């Protein structure tokens, strides 16, 4: 009688990589829901298109690389990348933005490095940076929250804007981002930066009509949504607490230092925490296992490093949000961090 041979251990824990990816995708739902509640269903359109492009380009490259296509698609990593891109770009940016971004992420940042597990940079963030520096206008045109809209946007309006750049009535997205008062809309961080550049203090900015009309509130809520999803991830032990905790703690403390030094010119820690892509970054992007540090000490250090870069760029940099840049810079340091934070091996020298 013959028996099968296989390597030990024969017993295995039953959680697979695909399940992890699916869990992460599911935990994005609260944030996505809040986003579409405040900004219209544009982001759902983006998600749909991004998913299709992500899977399509992944399949294409896998086929070219002569790898098993279906098995790799099933791991859900491409889908997750597409989703993250879709939720980070403005909801009504034209369709080709998300197409270029997603294809770039999957083909250049992930597959050309060797596919899942081999990429040095976070695909979603690399794509975001590419889009931001290539198409700064489109990438910063956040429409106001729906309640502040001068026009009510129907589904067809949004679809049309998404596909052609114009609503059914012929308004451009740029026109849409002008609020009732005729002020151009921007994200709170953008507004803050512009205000500082024009010589206002933070307090003045916070009280300005411009800021009040901005989507600050909405973005705070979206951040709460992502925080909620992230907590589920933590609870389900999909991610470990080191990176988010270190990142958020770092963000608070570094920004507090700057804030304490000059409260007029530096935004407060609270503002940092609940604006921009902070929560999305803390729980969904920094924790991407492939590109983050893997040792415990390394993870903490990585979180702190990214937080530091975020604060620096937000406070004195040229771009409104900084998570994407900070993550990429952090990614570069990961091999070094990992090398110098190796744990003490059992019985080994410290």
């Amino acid at each position, binding site marked *: 009688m013959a028996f*099968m041979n296989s390597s030990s251990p024969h017993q295995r824990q039953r959680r697979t990589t695909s399940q992890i990816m699916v869990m992460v995708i599911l935990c994005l739902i609260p944030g996505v829901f809040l986003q579409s509640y405040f900004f219209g269903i544009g982001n759902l359109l983006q998600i749909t298109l991004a998913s299709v492009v992500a899977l399509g380009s992944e399949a294409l490259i896998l086929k070219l690389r002569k790898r098993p296509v279906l098995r790799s698609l099933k791991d859900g990593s491409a889908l997750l990348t597409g989703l993250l891109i879709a939720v980070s770009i403005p909801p009504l940016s034209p369709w080709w933005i998300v197409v270029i971004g997603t294809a770039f992420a999957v083909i250049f940042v992930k597959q050309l490095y060797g596919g899942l597990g081999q990429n040095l940079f976070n695909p979603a963030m690399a794509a975001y940076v590419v889009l931001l520096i290539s198409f700064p206008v489109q990438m910063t045109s956040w429409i106001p929250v729906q309640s502040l809209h001068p026009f009510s946007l129907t589904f067809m309006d949004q679809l049309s804007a998404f596909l052609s750049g114009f609503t059914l009535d012929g308004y451009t997205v740029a026109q849409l981002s002008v609020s009732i008062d005729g002020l151009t809309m921007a994200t709170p961080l953008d507004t803050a930066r512009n205000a500082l550049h024009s010589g206002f203090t933070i307090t003045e900015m916070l009280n300005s009509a411009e800021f009040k009309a901005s989507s600050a509130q909405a973005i705070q809520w979206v951040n709460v949504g992502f925080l909620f999803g992230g907590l589920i991830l933590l609870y389900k032990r999909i991610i470990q607490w080191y990176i988010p905790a270190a990142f958020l703690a770092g963000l608070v403390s570094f920004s507090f230092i700057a804030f304490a030094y000059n409260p007029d010119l530096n935004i407060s820690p609270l503002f940092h925490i609940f604006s921009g892509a902070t929560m999305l970054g803390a729980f969904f992007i920094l924790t991407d296992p492939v590109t983050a540090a893997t040792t415990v000490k390394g993870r903490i250090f990585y979180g702190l490093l990214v937080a530091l870069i975020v604060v620096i760029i937000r406070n004195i940099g040229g771009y409104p949000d900084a998570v994407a840049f900070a993550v990429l810079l952090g990614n570069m340091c990961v091999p070094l961090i990992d090398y110098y934070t190796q744990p003490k091996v059992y019985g080994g020298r410290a």
Partner: protein
Amino acid sequence: MTTQPINLLSEEQLAQISSGKQWTFHGGVHPQENKIQSSGSAICDAGIPEFLVIGIEHKGHSPEMLVKVGDPVLKGQALTKVYGAMVVQHASSSGIVHAIEKRTDLHPSGLPVLSVVIKTDGLDRSIAYNKPDNFRDAPSVTLIETIQHAGIVGLGGAGFPSHLKLSHSDGIKLLIINAAECEPYITADDRLMQEHAQEIFQGIEVLEHILQPKLIVIAVEDNKPQAVEALQLALQKMHLTLRAELIIRTIPTLYPSGSEKQLIEIITGRQTPLGKHPTELGIVMQNVGTVFAVKEAVVDGKPLTSRIVTLTGDALRKKGNASVRIGTPIQYLLDKYQLNSETAQKLIIGGPMMGFSISHGDIPVTKTCNCILAPTVQEIPAPSAEMSCIRCGECAHACPASLLPQQLLWYSQSKDHDKLDDYNLSACIECGACAFVCPSNIPLVEYYRVAKAEINTAEQEAKKAETARIRHKNREARLEQAKIDRQAKHKQAAEKRKQQLKEKNGGEDLIAAALARAKAKKADSAAGENSEQADTPKSAAAAAVARAKAKKAALAEAASESSATGTADKPKNDAVAAAVARAKAKKAAQAQQDSQSDVAEETQLDPKKAAVAAAIARAKAKKAAQAQQDSQSDIAEETQVDPKKAAVAAAVARAKAKKAAAQQNSETAEPEEAPSDPKKAAVAAAVAKAKAKKAASANADQPDNSAVTAAREKRKEQARLHKQEKQQLANEAVKNSLDTALDKNSTAAEDRKAKIAAAVAKAKARQTAQKDQ
């Protein structure tokens, strides 16, 4: 290894341990325990199978045997002598030694080792165990020897000889009895403690006497409450006379707490330094099963002939623990415990975490086999497809050695041995916790094992290369010295010869030498065909003919050599003389054949007369050869053959000799002749071959040439020329070989000429080779 007192456990630490403090180790996992299936039923005897297979090889070394095939053996009888640090192996039941041969070992490789196969008689008679005196009066050295002679190795799984662990007894502070049994499914130790608690304590007494520790800790995982209870009950009943303090410590269930180093950390909070043994800390650990075996050996005088094996898994209809004789085939146990066979099933030796799979059941149980796990496919499915590592770090969390498995995987795949060392691959205990948690189903442990084996091989090879380098250097130095000595001695002779060479260095050139070599080679194969034709009827007669021819050829060769001096100046190619020689040789051969075949027939008809017949045949052959030699030597005076021909002839002769030798080997009708004749044929062939070589090319024995260099160059250049001229020479060579088969007269002078030619050819070849580069 010197024990550094710095690392030893201090008194405070011992006090902390005995006060009940516990530590933890990094990582660890909680696999499904699955122990209830087998822990409920009492240990039973597995019975006596028809054959017992007891492996006696240890790490490639085989000890001296005390039995031989056909010997009757009794249970407990030693099969081997003590050999180095190896333990003695014993027969585990009575019967007869059936065979001593290589049989599949209980090892993941499934490779065979030298084993003693015993055909049992079912009586299970044992030798008379002589109960030793009270062990407390014996010195520990004697007890350790007793343990070695009883064949006791670590029964927990690693199989490390126990006497070695006990012999480092200086400064031992702590004895840990490992009863953690952290692997899922296995309950052998659990049952042992429940049923033989008293014996275990007796064994502890023995170990305490040997090691003199300050503290003894029995470590049991908290999933074995009955075992702990049984131990405590026994402790109350017995009146132990221990000088050391004894503690029964329950530890939390966490895999792999039963691993030696991890258990030490749980109990003492100390880590064994990398690459060191726990004795460094003053700790000795013994498995509870080993303790039981020590008791049997020292108190009862019984050697280790059986062990407790857990038979479990859903594919077995009966489950439980059995006392199994060492060497019992696993198939026997599977039959007894009613295996439900299905396709794609696995059979695991040991637990599901560290055990290995075997591919068939005809493998014997060894001393390290603590569990036979026969799961159904649903229970332990085939591993799913491996996916890419996403560096999630789960493995680093689970690793009890605090390694970074994801980095190790990366470097294992790229075979970067230096990096693997940087990341301390050697600290990996192969517990499988990393692969257990891996969401991408990567068989991490397998990668590490392969990498470890590769590193090991590379180290061995490096070591071997270093030895080779040194030996080569020494040899070169020796040869150099010898050369200098010889040169001084033979300076005169060399001078003289040089003079001679100068005179004779005339007509020969590169091509001649090359031709000679090529022909010699061709002739070799052609002659092979030729003799095959002659020998087609594969009878004794044919063999005899071949043999005779070989002998004749060889002798003729010898004769021509001896009588051919001074003929160099004679005119070339006396065709007539050669023809006469050939004719004579043929005639002689014919006569030889007749006589030989007669004898051979006789031999076949009456094998008993073989010896006589062989003797006659030999004598006749000799006579015929003598005649041949005479005639040959006459002609040799006049015959002048160029070295080409000589080479060819020699080659043919050699080929024939080989053929004859081969035939001889296959022949079984002449038992008397067989041993004597091949030797002769071999000698003949040797002579012939030596000549062929001498004639054909540069000589390795030439005294003022470095033998080694010459041989090397020769080979290189030969190959080159051979390739170049192969085509055009093939036909010619075949033709020549047939004609000149029996013309074998060569002279010393011609030899020298050939040598010079070859040397020239060699030089030229080298030159061209260099140019090519």
